[in-house]
């Protein structure tokens, strides 16, 4: 007879534990269509909410007439700025964004009024019937002009040494532009608000950080935080788009006003206007190197367009500044990053978070230097590569493994694929458009390296909470894990169960719904949830195990709650940018091979190989998914994804014209995953979701340059850039 339910000592390789790839708890439902996304939520007597949005990027609001809308049969409420119960503004870092616009609007699509009606169609009709009297003003859309005028959310310099004292053998100066990328999550912003008998409200919403939502919602509703209860709803992608609030306060206001459940769900056009985007960037870079290609100095002026409201621009600026030269050693640096205030759509979090824009620029610069010096792109990177013991330009020591030179060397064992004799349309640029059968096709190869910080930086009190209860169910020990961590598709739920199995040696793990009845887990962003909530679940399990050694599970459940914190970080110095601002650094290297139809300017990425150091592999399948997905988003930015702006207006707020890669555009990927553990992190892990998003873009553009010989300083690269027409 086996020992009766003894704690494992020490934790061992458990079936379905850390290091394995158990089936996701939501896998079956997602495959057979039964999964309940936020857009599928419903309740008895439910009303539909809808938002009235400003069509103008910048306007004064002279009046809002709701009478016609209210007169429509089936309309239950029409609310304006005056109806916002308490605080009128909210925001992730700064509360500067109006819940509903009062005197004016500052970007196209800014919410002005709300309606609730018996059905969606009536709600839409009512929204169209709300008459807003606008005095249209000329929008301020030029971020560089905003910087000149000092209209910025943040300016962050970095200064070390003195670039002007160096004596470079070669200097390359270029200006780079990154267009406005969108997270384009397939699930639109959706949720359900249900008024509770005690005067509070229950929200079900697909979000990235339940407690940050709570902190912003409750003050606007004028409710105590415990009167607002938020539960995570089924999410259809996030990528940063769900860090800022969307439907939350609006549907809660409508529910509280009408006393009925209210559902809101954006349509696709609204979704594009209703969430923040990746900051477009204009970047002037100057790199000086010696004759061997060793970097002597880097100067950079980087303007990020923050748009109308602060969102997370402050933190994006800090990332862009601290990561401005990438994973290279350099002693003389003068970097300035500005986050401009304009009447363009607000920009904020998107996978890569300030690291993507600069990575495109500094990697393009490394290639330009290599070109000038006649050395290979791999060699120039190797000569300048950071390693454990190097310093970032912020003065922060890289104290964990950072084997970039080794990573670059690994490509020699993975040769570029040969050109197949028989190629299907799907393998060629233009795809099924049948534009080439080989005519005009030239091949190119390029490399890209990205350096990304993991977890929240600059002194932020970043923590996560986990509650773990071990209990006998039908004579078997079952672990109940409760956190508020948002499962955004990355597989975090699976990982929580894996950790509980490993730490407690149990087979069965029950995951409680993520909600605000447990402490904050922090955001599912910054590649931090494995580290932070993984760390919290591990700590809580360890505590339970400890208690378990002292008593018999048959005497009752054992429970522990733990908060997990990473090491402390410091703000960047406002003048020099110096400071240990980051928790952990992660590296990814891509090689891209492209076939370019040089006559039509169409690109097919035929190979994308990634080498990434993840410290420790916790779940191989989920990890590969993250690298594939991050690479695909990088590919999208390289060759197709851009919200095209015209004087503050988005011209392509639909999937007809905002193109994202399909399976046909993504080549099968080869991955070489390294495990150089970070001793400071739980299980030695290193955050993995973002780094591939950085390096894929410059690798692909470098490959296109290799094929075409064109300078290509702007992403996405459009066909007309490659054929030389306007």
């Amino acid at each position, binding site marked *: 007879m086996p020992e009766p339910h003894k704690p494992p000592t020490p934790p061992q390789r458990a079936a379905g534990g850390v290091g394995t790839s158990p089936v996701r708890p939501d896998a079956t439902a997602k495959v057979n269509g039964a999964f309940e996304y936020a857009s599928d939520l419903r309740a008895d007597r439910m009303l539909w909410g809808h938002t009235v949005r400003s069509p103008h990027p910048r306007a004064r609001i002279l009046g809002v007439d709701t009478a016609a809308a209210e007169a429509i049969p089936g309309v239950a409420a029409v609310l304006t700025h005056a109806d916002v119960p308490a605080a009128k503004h909210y925001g992730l870092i700064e509360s500067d964004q109006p819940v509903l616009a009062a005197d004016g609007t500052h970007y196209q699509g800014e919410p002005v009024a709300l309606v609730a009606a018996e059905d969606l169609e009536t709600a839409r009709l009512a929204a*169209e019937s709300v008459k807003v009297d606008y005095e249209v003003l000329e929008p301020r859309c030029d971020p560089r002009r905003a910087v000149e005028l000092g209209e910025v959310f943040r300016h962050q310099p970095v200064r070390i040494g003195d670039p002007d004292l160096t004596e470079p053998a070669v200097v390359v100066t270029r200006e780079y532009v990154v267009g406005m990328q969108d997270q384009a999550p397939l699930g639109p912003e959706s949720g359900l608000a249900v008024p509770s008998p005690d005067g509070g409200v229950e929200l079900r919403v697909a979000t990235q950080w339940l407690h940050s939502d709570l902190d912003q919602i409750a003050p606007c509703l004028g409710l105590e935080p415990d009167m607002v209860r938020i539960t995570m709803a089924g999410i259809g992608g996030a990528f940063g788009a769900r860090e800022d609030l969307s439907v939350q306060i609006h549907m809660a206001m409508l529910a509280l006003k009408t006393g009925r459940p209210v559902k809101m769900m954006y349509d696709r056009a609204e979704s594009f206007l209703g969430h923040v985007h990746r900051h477009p960037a204009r970047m002037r870079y100057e790199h000086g190197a010696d004759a061997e290609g060793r970097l002597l100095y880097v100067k950079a002026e980087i303007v990020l367009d923050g748009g109308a409201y602060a969102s997370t621009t402050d933190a994006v600026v800090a990332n862009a500044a601290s990561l401005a030269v990438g994973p290279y050693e350099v002693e003389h640096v003068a970097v300035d990053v500005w986050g401009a205030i304009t009447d363009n759509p607000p920009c904020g979090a998107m996978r890569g978070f300030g690291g993507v824009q600069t990575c495109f620029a500094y990697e393009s610069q490394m290639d330009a230097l290599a070109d000038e010096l006649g050395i290979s792109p791999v060699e120039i990177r190797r000569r300048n590569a950071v390693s454990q013991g190097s310093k970032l330009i912020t003065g922060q020591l890289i104290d964990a493994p950072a084997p970039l030179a080794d990573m670059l060397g690994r490509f020699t064992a993975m040769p570029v694929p040969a050109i197949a004799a028989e190629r299907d349309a799907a393998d060629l640029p233009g795809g099924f*458009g049948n534009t*080439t059968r080989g005519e005009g096709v030239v091949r190119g190869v390029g490399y890209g390296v990205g350096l990304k910080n993991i977890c929240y930086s600059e002194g932020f009190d970043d923590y996560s909470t986990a509650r773990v209860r071990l209990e006998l169910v039908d004579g078997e020990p079952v672990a109940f894990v409760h956190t508020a961590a948002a499962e955004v598709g990355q597989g975090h739920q699976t990982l929580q169960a894996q950790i509980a199995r490993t730490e407690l040696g149990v087979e069965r793990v029950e995951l409680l719904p993520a909600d605000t009845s447990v402490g904050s887990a922090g955001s599912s962003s910054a590649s931090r949830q494995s580290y932070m909530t993984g760390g919290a679940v591990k700590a809580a399990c360890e505590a339970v195990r400890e208690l378990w050694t002292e008593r018999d599970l048959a005497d009752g459940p054992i429970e522990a709650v733990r908060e997990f914190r990473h090491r402390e970080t410091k703000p960047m110095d406002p003048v020099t940018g110096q400071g240990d601002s980051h928790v952990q650094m992660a590296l990814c290297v891509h090689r891209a091979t492209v076939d370019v139809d040089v006559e039509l300017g169409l690109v097919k990425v035929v190979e994308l190989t990634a080498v990434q150091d993840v410290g420790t592999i916790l779940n191989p399948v989920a990890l590969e998914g993250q690298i594939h997905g991050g690479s695909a988003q990088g590919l999208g930015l390289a060759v197709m994804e851009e919200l095209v702006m015209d004087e503050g207006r988005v011209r392509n707020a639909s999937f007809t014209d905002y193109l994202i890669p399909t399976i046909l555009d993504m080549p099968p990927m080869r991955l070489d995953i390294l495990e150089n553990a970070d001793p400071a992190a739980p299980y030695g892990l290193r955050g993995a979701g973002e780094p591939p998003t950085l390096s894929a873009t410059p690798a692909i553009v470098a490959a296109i340059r290799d094929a075409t010989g064109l300078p290509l300083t702007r992403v996405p690269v459009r066909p007309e850039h490659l054929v030389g027409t306007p």
Partner: protein
Amino acid sequence: MNTQLKDPNDVSVGRTKEMFHRPTDIEEAVSCLAAHPGAVPIAGGTDVMVGVNYRRLRPAAMIDLTGVVELREWSDEGDAIRIGAGVPYARIIDDLGGVLPGLAAASRTVGSPQIRNRGTLGGNLATASPAGDAHPPLLAAGAKVEIASTAGRRTVPAADFYTGPKRSVLAESELIAAVIVPKAAGPQQFLKVGNRGAMVISVCSFALSLDVEGRAVGAGIGSAGPTPLRATEAESIELPWDKSGPLGDETVERFGALVAEAARPIDDVRGTAAYRRHALAVCARRALLRAWKELLCDWN
């Protein structure tokens, strides 16, 4: 199974019997249309429902054409194929790739498998978007559109069908019954430029149709003008039909230039006018070279 998932009342369109009609033959369909002015015919719904979802369209009533058998069938008429307006792209690809290679090639580029299963030729024509992929091969092949109303039937050449952006000769009281497409009398090509491997609205497209016996060239242009266009000047290019040898570079260049000249493109979010002209010249050259190569193979 998932009864909680989808509620047909989500969008309150077509809820009642008076708002939704499902005729079973064309006569009934056109009578229904005459009896309900403002009613919107719906075939695959891949254009109509996008309009409804974006509130560009609030039909007072809908006439579902999927029950009309005649519209769902194609037939061999000797020299031509008569394709019912409700035949989806997937059937054109599966059944007609041999006799109508140009139209089948264009059909293959439409949307995704789901769209090709539902989307129809009649819907593409009635929408009359300059970017519709069926138009260039229909123009190149000299197809005719058969139109039905309570007054009877009339036939309009594809070249006369389009009158402006998303406008055609089709009156509110009329339905498209069929499209009559001459069988290929030589090589046909279709090239569609889009900035994604599939599932993309064309930036510009080009269809070529060679009639070896008739020594005729057909050239259709998509997404590069207010309507789909025929490149008539290019169609009158002299080709060395007798010599059965390769085409001279000059001929190929000239053909490309004439096609580019025939275009009337604009700058929009999908591409610039200059790029479209450039790309059309490239596509036209490639199409002609490929078609000629195919001819040479046949001759030798």
